[in-house]
């Protein structure tokens, strides 16, 4: 195409080969970058809900209620026992929050996915880029949370940094199927249902606030099924510097299975919506 100066001196089309469209080198990264630019405008809104509130919970609940639990849990101070649970459950909240309304909006309201699919990006790139952003949000939130709880002295073991890869895996294990779910529902009330019937029960009964051993048998097995319990057990082992209740490999494989199955389901759900 030719460089041209037309009419009122407006350069219309440039010759520069640099602006010729081609397939990007790491296409999912271009998608990730898009969300990062968006985050520059909206991060403030998220700071309170995803970071400050968990810290307040540590203070109000961990310290407050902890003072009445004299014997601690399994010989550990209640605050120390609770913090790893809150690390995992905060990661869960951030993950599901970021994999529901924003994804739904990208299909239904703002239609970002459709804009992306008109570019050279493939469905897998669009999905992977957005998932990477959710992981980024989880990791930054938890890193900040670790910093603060560390200052409180609520992280007895230096192994606490191992919670970062754990919450990243939890993020994937939860975000991928949630993406699939969100892509398949027709109304955003279904997203609120997900919170009411999955996220909240999981948070309350999967070993975050009290040990699952005190649950009735049937409920305890239900808790074992949730990805959250596996992450809680791993995080707790990390911050307390003890061995987890299950084998580490078992936990990791179980979470990875969620992630892989979720990825396949999400890819299928996204294709169904974007390639018709």
């Amino acid at each position, binding site marked *: 195409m030719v460089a041209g100066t037309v009419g009122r001196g407006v350069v219309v089309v440039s010759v520069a080969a640099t602006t010729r469209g081609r397939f990007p080198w790491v296409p999912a990264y271009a998608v990730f970058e898009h969300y990062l630019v968006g985050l520059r405008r909206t991060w403030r809104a998220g700071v309170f809900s995803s970071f400050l509130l968990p810290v307040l919970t540590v203070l109000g609940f961990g310290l407050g*209620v902890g*003072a009445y639990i004299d014997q601690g849990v399994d010989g550990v101070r209640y605050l120390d026992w609770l913090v790893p649970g809150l690390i995992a459950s905060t990661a869960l909240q951030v993950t599901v929050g970021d994999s529901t309304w924003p994804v739904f909006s990208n299909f239904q309201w703002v239609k970002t996915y459709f804009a992306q699919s008109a570019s050279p990006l493939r469905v897998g790139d669009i999905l992977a880029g957005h998932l990477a952003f959710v992981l980024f949000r989880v990791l930054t939130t938890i890193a900040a949370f670790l910093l603060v709880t560390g200052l409180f002295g609520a992280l007895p073991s230096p192994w606490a940094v191992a919670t970062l890869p754990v919450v990243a895996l939890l993020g994937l294990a939860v975000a991928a199927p949630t993406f699939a779910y969100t892509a398949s529902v027709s*109304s955003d009330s279904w997203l609120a249902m997900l919170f009411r019937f999955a996220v909240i029960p999981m948070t309350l009964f999967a070993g975050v606030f009290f040990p699952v051993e005190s649950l009735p048998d049937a409920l305890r097995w239900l808790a074992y099924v949730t990805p959250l319990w596996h992450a809680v057990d791993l995080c707790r082992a990390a911050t307390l510097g003890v061995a987890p209740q299950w084998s580490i490999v078992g936990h990791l494989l179980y979470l990875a299975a969620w992630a892989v199955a979720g990825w396949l389901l999400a890819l299928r759900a996204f294709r169904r919506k974007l390639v018709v």
Partner: protein
Amino acid sequence: MLTLVLPRLVDVSAVSRRSASVVERNVAALKSVYWLLLLSGFVEPLLYLLSIGVGVGALVGDLPLPDGRLVSYAEFVAPAMLASSAMTGALAETTFNFFGKMKYMKLYDGMIATPVRPFEIALGELGWAMLRGSAYSAAFLAVMVALHLTTVARALTALPAAVLVGFAFGALGMAVSTFMRSWQDFDLMGSAQFTLFLFSGTFVPAQAYPTLLHWLVEVTPLYRSVHLIRGVTLGVGGWAWLLDVLYLVAMMAVGLLVASRRMGRLLYP
């Protein structure tokens, strides 16, 4: 814990980022799943009661009351859950939904073309919020009776108290939402709500707080609500409840007054 308010916060912040399409959101919400969501609303405080009251309660054991009596942790926490859920429900209905209807759906612009006055609109909104909230409270109290956390007679007395709490927070919420500029402001409100939830003598007696925090907490509305309902369900005697009731009635009156004034100004500029 984290979750009672957090889901709503996540919800708000996510939607606020996409506020362009709020209208579509509300239209989409009018489907049958919305009603399912509405009906299942009372399950939430119940789950909290079981998790914190029973699950964490097993770790805490019994708590001493100021009058020297020992009560189980579930007995102690249950009335606070009731008060908090009455607050959360009333605020959700009167702030989030109210703001959406006022700002984006222009619902009220249509109404005021009729002889209805803003104050009546405000009352109507509050009435609807309370209908739903009262049903949740009644269900929760029934569960408390079933779990032997209170008696039938006390539960019957606690219901109007819970309704009053709902009305007071509903009125406050309406007044607050007339000051809201955008969905982002709801993040702040949600955070304030969550902070109240954590520090209103909900999980531990306020006497356990440091002195300064204790006195600060004494004047907050959720603390007064928890104090009122706990007094009723645990059968604490004395006249302290009168102060709580007066406080809540005053809050409701001021809230309604401010809301109707501000609405008038927003709708007839």
